[in-house]
């Protein structure tokens, strides 16, 4: 049988997803054994033109990580879609918008104003901002457009499967690759991880008391966590209940609460809303002042509840229009 052709690409990404593939270590050789890598800019010397020259549907499986932030990302995503039989959104940014998606609380104008003018570390007396087209020494240089809104991959192109995680864990990648090569894939559009929340596999789940009631909420630096006891019951925001499992509880085992990178379960449209709903449901409610105090303990609720999923939430972004009274 002919070797499968695979491609890997990164959009608005931190590089962690690429690192996750490298972390497969010698297992990557098994992949190479079964497949030819036909495009992987971070590691191999391929050009965009190489892809353009491939016939349509030439690539069997294309893994795309990172969110869609620039025009270039969208252009490449569309190109790769055309050239690929199967596109897999790889990692939280591609799956849900991820950390870059939190920029949807601002727009291009406010981001540029801060980043190139107002940030305390900026020295920019001339007030220079990146331009899409610049002439330098008679040469015309071009930069991609920076958009107001960050999107997940499936908000730009059709996606066949999703591999969640920030970054995807070695096991989840391995399982996905095995499923792809053995043809044992679930229904199109599935997220290739557990169908249950993290709690189901969490070693601390059985330490939960019968009822969980929060009378305070602490950030991890404000508490010495007992690693033998469910973090949520210690007043630390753990998004395990609202997050898809399959990561082998790596953060929990590493002594940190779940921040939700595997995203919501199939039944959930909006992970952040679910998270806010479940957390506020278990706050001690007998005393109104206490409720207010506990709610105020949640520093940066959007950052907590929508850390990886703002572009894929119901609201998608903040409306920058200021309504005049």
């Amino acid at each position, binding site marked *: 049988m002919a070797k499968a052709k695979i491609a890997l690409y990164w959009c608005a990404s931190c590089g962690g997803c690429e690192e996750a593939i490298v972390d497969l270590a010698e297992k990557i050789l098994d992949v190479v054994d079964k497949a030819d890598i036909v495009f992987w800019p971070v590691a191999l010397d391929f050009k965009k033109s190489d892809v353009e020259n491939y016939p349509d549907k030439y690539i069997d499986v294309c893994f795309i990580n990172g969110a869609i932030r620039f025009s270039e990302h969208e252009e490449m995503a569309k190109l790769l879609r055309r050239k690929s039989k199967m596109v897999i959104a790889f990692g939280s940014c591609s799956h849900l918008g991820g950390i870059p998606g939190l920029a949807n609380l601002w727009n291009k104008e406010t981001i540029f104003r801060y980043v190139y003018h107002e940030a305390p570390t900026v020295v920019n007396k001339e007030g220079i901002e990146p331009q899409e087209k610049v002439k330098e020494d008679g040469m015309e240089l071009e930069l991609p457009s920076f958009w107001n809104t960050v999107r997940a991959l499936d908000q730009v192109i059709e996606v066949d499967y999703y591999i969640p995680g920030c970054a995807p864990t070695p096991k989840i990648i391995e399982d996905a690759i095995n499923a792809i090569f053995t043809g044992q894939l679930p229904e199109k559009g599935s997220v290739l991880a557990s169908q*249950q929340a993290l709690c189901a596999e969490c070693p601390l789940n059985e330490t939960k008391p019968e009822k969980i009631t929060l009378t305070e909420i602490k950030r991890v630096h404000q508490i010495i966590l007992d690693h033998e006891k469910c973090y949520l019951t210690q007043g630390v925001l753990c998004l395990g209940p609202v997050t898809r499992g399959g990561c082998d509880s790596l953060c929990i085992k590493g002594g940190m609460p779940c921040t939700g990178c595997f995203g919501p379960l*199939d039944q959930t449209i909006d992970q952040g809303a679910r998270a806010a709903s479940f957390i506020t449901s278990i706050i001690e409610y007998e005393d109104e002042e206490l409720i207010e105090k506990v709610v105020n303990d949640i520093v940066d609720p959007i950052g907590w509840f929508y850390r990886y999923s703002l572009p894929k939430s119901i609201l998608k972004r903040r409306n920058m229009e200021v309504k005049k009274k």
Partner: protein
Amino acid sequence: MEEVRIGIYICHCGKNIAGVINPKRIVEHLSRLPNVVVAKEYLYMCSSPGQSLIEEDIKEYNLNRIIVAACSPRMHEPTFQSALIRAGLNPYLLEMVNIREHATWVHERDPAETEQKVIGLIRAAVHRAINLYPLEVERLPVVKSVLVVGGGIAGIRASLDLAKAGYKVYLVEKNQSIGGKMAQLDKTFPTLDCSQCILTPMMVDVSNNPNIILQTYSVVEEINGRPGEFEVKVRQKARYVDWDACTGCGTCVEKCPARVPSEFDEGLGTRKAIYFDFPQAIPRRPVIDPDHCLYLIKGVCRVCEKFCPTGAIKFEDEDQFLTLKVGAIVVATGYQLYDMRKMYEYGYGKYRNVITGMQLERLSSANGPTSGRITTIEIERGKIKPGKEPETVAIILCAGSRDENHIKYCCRIGCMAGLKHAYYIAHALPNSKIIICYTDIRAFGKGFEEFYQRIRSLPNVFMVRGRPMEIFENKDGSLILDVFDSNTNRRLTINADLVVLETALVPPQGFEEFRKILKISCDPGGFGLELHPKLKPVETTVDGIYLAGFIQGPKDIPDTVAHAGAAAAAASAFLAKGYIESIPYLAHVDEDICSGCGVCVSVCPYDAITIEVTDGRRLAKVNSVKCKGCGACAAACPSGAMQQHYFTDKQILSEVSALAEGVVA
């Protein structure tokens, strides 16, 4: 999957709806909506022809979803559900849209906008209806017995009614005897009947009724099970007397050397360490107060044991636990007096001649510490004894009630009790002077106004409209009241030999804990909360648990008795058929998704969810009988595994999405 075929019916509700919008015009809009097969309007959908219209259309057009846009579902949902049943359709395939209360009644000034709102609401209902599915109700057996908690007049009345209806009644009372507060009263307003004369025959009826099992000196500790089949754990406090052996002769009480301030006499008289609550106690079986029995605290005495002719004294007695199985529970735990020591400006507990209205009842009662003589109070070598006949008595109404710093609500009986107390004094001491300091006289009940007019026209009764600011004590124990009379606009200084406080009345001690055992809500005053303030005055949020009398809120005796009768009738109706029907819109878990995180267990107000380990997996399980379908778990469930029938995420979100014009995925 079966094709969804929707019929929509818009009710004119006479002019209530059609007076604002044009149903015909709306019907034209509706045919464009998905899956809508037929849309019609009619003058009164709830009428017989209106219902027939639906029934016929179901058959003719083979409809499998019905939307009625009319009034509130609280009003006519059952009406239209029965129309569906008659046409052979599951009643939960009905969706009602409230276009009366939610649209035409509230926006009648803007018909055009109202029409848009109505269309929007119906569009949302169409999307919800598409996602509806049939639901079934389950029949569950009930135990035909009732627990009545509290043996005052409310508990007595409820027990007698239930026993009469053929139910087995367990009447649990915390004191040695039933009778409650009413047994302490001398007379009742406004008729001035002797309280004991009307109460004690009912107490005897209770003890003689074969259907009533009297369980006094006992408290309810735990309630498990479900409506229709509660399991109640009762703690019978150690009595130190074998009640089966005891004949109630009272020799032990007579011989006991220990004297203790009597609770029944509000501390004005004494009782023995082995005692009956009062001479007419039912059951007539004494208990030993372990905190004052010389043998139990010091190891010497045993006089009662020596004199008991039947050998019934049992010093080694311990608390005993009983488990009762009952179908329903009537809560009739009554009230207690607000602690007047908290109003230190009146000096109660410090000035011996400042007493409560209940203490005056005891002084005036023939079976009280003074055998019915109303006197001032003297204290001799630390012991309370009767003093002289008072020449002037001040009665203060609203003592602690209607007071921001104490109890905000009206006690509802203080005005009449105060007037009755003025009567006691005027009647017993015709030469005395009685000053009633009132805020407002609330004489709303049957015969109350007449009673008020009668008392205020007595020549020695004086009305002062003002609450005393402070009371001072003279060396001889008489008192000086400083009060501003707003009728005459003058500040008065009143000298009185005795001051009677018509105290605020509050839920009994321990009710807050007991309420949590019952899992019922309370009002801001701490009283048990009825299900609806007008229409469900005895029901609670828990099926099968009913409130009787003062515990639902302040009431006088006639209101208490009527309320208790209503509670008994409601409990009786609940159990009469021998089964109850489960509500169909319960929570249920998708076990493939549930992660066993336990959030649902934490938020369930009815303890209906437990986490159980199945094949090594933690899974939430819903007890369908305890579940009330409140939806708290479904809203809190972080994974979406918990859904509530008839209100699934899909149903609600499709509705929201339609309203938001498809913004939601």
